[in-house]
């Protein structure tokens, strides 16, 4: 390997040599970003005893980074810098001054196989346990509130009421109206072939008050309010604001979670009733277009939609509201301290609350079927 080729200045090149039992690393060429480094000789030799750099041209961070990689791979103690030009030596000394903290790197390796399965099952179980604990805490905190022991700022409560009440009306109206129209259209296509178009009124009425009104409201509120809860509480957590509450003796649960759960549980039924009405109006509009006068639509609908039917959706909305508020607050409270963690908490809050809503709704469907309502 002793072909003396003078190709400097040229591509960066590192050549490992042996010279009388000593390992030499010859560096030559211009080491600038973008040029391809050519290495000759094995890099199993550890760290060279000295460097030959007479053909070395300009260099930027490429070269020190290359040398540090050799060090990292070779596990070298006390590397010598003999033969390096003065400025490169300075940089290397700077980079080597503080020894690498080995424990700081990979504190925990990636688990494999059974170990990984076990870890994941355990994590899943802990997640379920902690959400159950959170629900329990909410109940306890509510009880404390009713005996006058839990406190929160009324401004916070009214702020949330405003946000998940009045401010949500336009979007709920838009979505509900469209859903009512869609139901009427789809129903009419089928029913008209039996000459039973009039029953579109029953279909829209029942579907809205039992399912669609509350469901759409709940989904809108998870995306709107549940996500906002998670993001707000999560960033308070990241900014140590929750720590600050704790060290002033505030019960952070009563203070942050309770007003949000209360506000949403109070507002969800109201929004649901509103959504039902708007949805039925949407159905009526389509009905009028296909030849069912609104008055007839209304009378027909009332033959099947009674107070019991109408109250089912409203009843469910209380539980959906609690589920949305609890998942939002839960994810916010346990979010980590970075902005990325707040983003993750928000995503999880929305996914968890929509999942919870669907599961609850299925459970209610079973219960109502058994009870025959």
């Amino acid at each position, binding site marked *: 390997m002793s072909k003396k080729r003078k190709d400097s200045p040229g591509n960066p090149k590192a050549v490992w040599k042996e010279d009388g039992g000593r390992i030499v690393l010859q560096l030559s060429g211009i080491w600038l970003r973008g040029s391809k480094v050519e290495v000759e000789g094995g890099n199993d030799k550890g760290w060279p005893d000295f460097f030959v750099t007479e053909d070395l041209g300009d260099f930027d961070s490429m070269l020190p980074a290359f040398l540090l990689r050799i060090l990292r791979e070779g596990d070298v103690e006390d590397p010598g810098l003999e033969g390096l030009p003065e400025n490169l030596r300075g940089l290397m000394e700077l980079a080597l001054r503080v020894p690498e903290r080995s424990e700081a790197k990979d*504190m925990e390796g990636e688990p494999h196989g059974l170990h990984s399965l076990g870890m994941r099952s355990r994590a899943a179980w802990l997640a379920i346990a902690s959400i159950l604990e959170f629900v329990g805490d909410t109940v306890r905190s509510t009880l404390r509130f009713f005996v006058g022991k839990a406190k929160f700022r009324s401004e916070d409560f009214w702020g949330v009421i405003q946000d998940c009440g009045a401010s949500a009306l336009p979007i709920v109206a838009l979505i509900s109206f469209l859903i009512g129209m869609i139901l009427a259209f789809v129903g009419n296509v089928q029913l008209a072939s039996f000459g039973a178009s009039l029953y579109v009124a029953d279909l829209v009425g029942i579907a809205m008050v039992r399912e669609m009104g509350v469901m759409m409201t709940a989904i809108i509120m998870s995306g709107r309010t549940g996500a906002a809860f998670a993001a707000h509480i999560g960033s*308070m957590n990241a900014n*140590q604001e929750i*720590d*600050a509450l704790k*060290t*002033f*003796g505030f019960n952070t649960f009563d203070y942050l979670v309770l007003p949000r759960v209360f506000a949403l549980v109070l507002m969800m039924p109201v929004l649901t009733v509103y959504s039902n009405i708007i949805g039925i109006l949407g159905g009526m509009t389509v009905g009028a277009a296909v030849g069912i006068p609104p008055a007839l639509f209304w009378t027909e609908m009332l033959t099947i939609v009674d107070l019991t039917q109408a109250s089912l959706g409203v009843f469910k909305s209380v539980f959906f509201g609690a589920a949305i508020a609890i998942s939002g607050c839960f994810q916010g409270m346990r979010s980590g301290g970075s902005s990325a963690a707040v983003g993750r908490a928000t995503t999880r809050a929305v996914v968890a609350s929509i999942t919870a809503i669907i599961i609850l709704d299925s459970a209610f469907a079973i219960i109502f079927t058994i009870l025959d309502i």
Partner: protein
Amino acid sequence: MTEQPDKNAKISVRGLKMAFGSFVVMNDLNFDVQKEDIFVIMGGSGCGKSTLLRHMIGLKEPAEGSVFYEGENFTAADGDERLKYIRRFGVMYQSGALWSSMTLAENITMPIEENTDLSAKEIRDLAYYKLALVGLSGYEDYYPAQVSGGMNKRAGIARALALDPEVLFLDEPGAGLDPLSSQRLDELILRLRDSLGSTFVIVTHELASIFAIANNSLFLDTETRTQGATGDPKELRDQTENETVRLFLSRGEDIETADQS
């Protein structure tokens, strides 16, 4: 040192071990903070200074060992009993940690409302006074996001003072302040100590400030993962046998200048 706390000390820490899971941050910490001390916790970046502070105010539980207040075991106390101690602390967090949905004045009135029976007017007056103490008169109705980082920090100190605490914990109060504000802050700390008789526990690595105010200190050594030395920082600089501590306090002199950030 024994495992027994010093009955006369304001705060005693005995055999404290701090860990995140299996990752041990610091081991075997033993020190005392006397009444009216200005006690500085110092050390390089990432050595666990703020973590130690969090242990002392009960936001994190020790892996081993205990923290004592006036000889009473704080670590073993829980629930309402622990709250009794916590109400005697004031804490300023690294970023200020003001409640962002409230004005500066509300940030101070809220803890007072929670913990006293004063009238709304009296509370308001107290908040104005606390803000004036840190030089923020006229900013009462600003929101934290509307004022500068340094002002947030000072408002954080005003809030920490809200309940006239016996012990004030300040997490890097001087970091990010210009030299003059930083000097004013030191003066503020000294005056508060002299006039209120408060005890201060301060996390910092600003040498100028350490020598100006501290009369007692603890050095956390990243290499050995335990305390390097404890005592008056001026004496430590001149007399300590511990190489790391001496280098830290003399700004490295020959080496070690990179870790000052």
